[in-house]
């Protein structure tokens, strides 16, 4: 199962490193990644495979939100279908 992980916040050093090592610790594989910085605003979108993850998507979402809180960015993890449903026919 794939999920979309978004990281939004003020840019600073080490955001990708923090997030990706956290995901590795949960056995979540990163399938694709895109990142943009607009002025000081950091937006990263990852497509992650959670089939082999050690936690369910709902729990992963909560733990990522906590991680985001700790490093000062906003992190969401959502089932990819919500984006497919809303933005493609």
């Amino acid at each position: 199962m794939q999920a979309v992980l978004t990281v939004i916040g003020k840019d600073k050093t080490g955001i990708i490193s923090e997030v990706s090592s956290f995901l590795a610790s949960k056995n979540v594989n990163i399938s694709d990644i895109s990142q943009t910085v607009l002025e000081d605003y950091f937006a990263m979108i990852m497509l992650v495979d959670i089939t082999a993850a050690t936690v369910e998507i709902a729990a992963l979402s909560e733990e990522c939100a906590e991680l985001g809180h700790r490093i000062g960015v906003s992190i969401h993890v959502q089932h990819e279908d919500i984006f497919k449903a809303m933005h493609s026919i």
Partner: protein
Amino acid sequence: MFNTGEVLETINMIEREHLDIRTVTMGISLLPCIAGTAKKTAENIYDTICKKAEKIVKVTYELSREYGIPIVNKRVSITPASIICAPFASKSYLIGKALDDAAKAVGVDFLGGYSALVHKGMADYEKTFIESIPEVLADTERLCSSVNIGSTKSGINMDAVKLMGKIIKTAAEKTKDNDSFGCAKLVVFCNAVEDNPFMAGAFHGIGENSTVINVGVSGPGVVQHAIENNKDSDLTELAEIIKRTAFKITRAGQLIAKEAAKRLNAEFGIVDLSLAPTPARGDSVAAILEEIGLESVGTHGTTACLAMLNDAVKKGGIMASSRVGGLSGAFIPVSEDIGMIEAAQRGTLCIDKLEAMTSVCSVGLDMIAVPGDTPDTTISAIIADEAAIGMINNKTTAVRIIPVIGKNVGEEVNFGGLLGKAPIMPIHKESSELFIKRGGLIPAPIHSNKN
């Protein structure tokens, strides 16, 4: 990979613009529960609801965490109870109590369907049932009631309209210590729909499957924001923007509805494409109309803006869902929409303008507080006016009016939560008594004869 802009748009809608799934409602047929006695039937009802809706709260919680979209309300609707209670109508309150207990046991905030359909005629058992409504609403917490008194096909049952004026006044009296709250749980319909997921008017029609999931989406804030970003667009362009926004909102609803149905062993029923406001700022239908260019909702131009909005929401939503139903349109409840509340307080929004608005949007006069000494015949006449709009225009109209006992124009009533607060609105003082006393049936309109 997803388009960055699209992903961020969805997140923005949820985080900042109050996009949510307003309700996941499980419709349950209670026909198999009818037994020889009221007591046994009540037991069967309690057991059936507890079994079928056991997981509704858990499943919706999981869905909202997985998809990252809030699901605000979990509800149950049932077969119109007057049918269930027909053999023992004088003991209908026992069924009402069992329904309320079941709603509490499964953890839903409202259960709809303490209802009767009397649009053409009212049998004795139905009259007895309807007369039980005020007491049942006063004695229960989560039960909602509705009565269908007219339809395009059958006309308006004015005897039922007359009775409902009295029932609403009695319900207000019986809950007068609580700002006549009983009336907030009672809707009078013309052309009631059988698959409405929204309260207080939800019930599970007898033409429906045994267990279905109906979902109501919402997102006035999202539409308002989309219009805000297009200040220079003309109305043709605005209609397109609203359509596109409604499409996206509805697709989210369709996804949740299908997944919820699968996990709850129910059939996917419909998605109701409604713009349902809440008293929160940024979640208001009135604010959309004002964003289009009105200084205040209620002023000249309101009906035209609402007509355009309502139509665009339907057009965008219909393509987004395989099954559309319920009320599907913009809701304009006064107490549940901060923009409507403020316009009513200013005096810009009056009942007459609201009535005009209901001819171009879904539902009708909703959550309107009026003086507690309003005569029951005046309430009946207000119902008759709304029903006439519904009957002639082949659409659903409803009246959820609260004569707040002990309060008058200039005062306010506060129901709290999603039901919000409302100023007591002035109504016409001139009597409609002789009209209502005539009773009988207003015949169905000529254009109902389509066969």
